[in-house]
């Protein structure tokens, strides 16, 4: 695929650099809102919209923003879109607004959004940035929905609110509580480590993930301790 073509950007976001399963960034909302598949998809789509809009806007402004103040400028752009989306959700989908609560304004500090602004949108034209945001957003949505579905199925016997498992199944409620989030993520990283270990043993290239170094390598200069 041609570099920076729309299809390549979508593939990159959904498969190759999937933010949840490969890059392991944006973990705060991933753990907090995936108590059900519905919440996961809602949070994913909200982030998708904000990511796409902010990528487009930052890409349009990339020649106007001086290098020295680019982080505050990016944060300003992202915070504005978050505010707009928050008000729209409050007005039109109040049930989602209530269940996501404080995690909607916290999208501002989501590593994925500032990370993509810094790594891609600040250097590339508008159309690739648009598809980069769409791809990353879809990858994030898929990740959150999968984790949410697993937790909801085990923790409540349901999927998207419909009873899937028979009545005789005793739900393991702890999976939809806070400890369950840590447990599911621990297993996810363990599987990822295992796959990487096998790939390394065969001498294949191992994709880099930011996990284990905290925020230091999430591609976001504001995270890695540099000044704004």
């Amino acid at each position, binding site marked *: 695929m041609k570099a920076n073509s729309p299809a390549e950007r979508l593939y990159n976001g959904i498969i190759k650099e999937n933010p949840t399963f490969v890059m392991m960034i944006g973990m705060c909302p991933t753990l907090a809102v995936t108590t059900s598949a519905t919440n996961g998809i809602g949070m994913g789509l909200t982030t998708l919209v904000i990511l796409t809009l902010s990528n487009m806007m930052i890409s349009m402004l990339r020649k106007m923003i001086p290098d020295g103040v680019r982080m505050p400028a990016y944060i300003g752009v992202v915070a504005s879109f978050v505010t707009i989306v928050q008000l729209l959700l409050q007005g039109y989908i109040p049930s989602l607004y209530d269940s996501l609560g404080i995690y909607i304004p916290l999208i501002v500090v989501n590593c994925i959004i500032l990370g993509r602004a810094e790594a891609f949108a600040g250097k590339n034209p508008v159309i690739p940035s648009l598809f980069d945001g769409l791809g990353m957003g879809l990858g994030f949505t898929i990740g959150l929905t999968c984790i949410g579905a697993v937790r909801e199925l085990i923790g409540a016997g349901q999927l998207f609110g419909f009873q899937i498992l028979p009545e005789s199944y005793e739900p393991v409620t702890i999976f939809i509580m*806070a400890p369950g989030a840590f447990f599911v993520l*621990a297993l996810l*990283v363990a599987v990822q*480590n295992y796959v990487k270990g096998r790939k390394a043993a065969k001498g294949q290239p191992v994709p880099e993930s930011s996990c284990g170094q*905290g925020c230091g390598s999430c591609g976001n200069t504001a*995270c890695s301790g540099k000044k704004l």
Partner: protein
Amino acid sequence: MKELLMIAIGSAIVNNVVLSQFLGLCPFLGVSKKIDTAAGMGGAVIFVLTISSLITSLIYQFVLVPSGMEFLQTIVFILVIAALVQLVEMFMKKVLPPLYQALGVYLPLITTNCAVLGVAISNVQDGYNVLEGVVNGFATAVGFTIAIVLMAGLREKMEYNNVPKAFQGMPIVLLTAMLMSIAFTGFAGII
């Protein structure tokens, strides 16, 4: 006084910021290898979170509410916090060099710690006044410090354990966090 105490215990222990709200997870996982550094990070978070709760509460009560611009809270808070952390850093370097030596390296890391913005916003959502907001910020940061220091203590012991290969590194830390989180749900009945 009783209400302030309830807020303090509630945010420090019962609704622990890391273990039940998942805020500030990056430093919790990243800076918890040694007790010394974990305590340093905790100290810096207590310092910044208390000041930032005070400033954001003041701005909300006396600037945003009178001018009817509450909807701008997210934008205003994040920019104020980013500026405040740098200001605190410069001020500390000039006036309190020993404290700066101890906490300075952690300060820039805190800007994007989602706990800081999270507390500012939850102060508004829960309708706290300035004093309650400051207490909430301080207690949340104490809760963060408790969690990160405990985690660092466990990780120091875990160095000597024989962990399965795939679980080495992050997965075992997350499993430890899970067990701590279960323990902290035991506090749920206190208030």
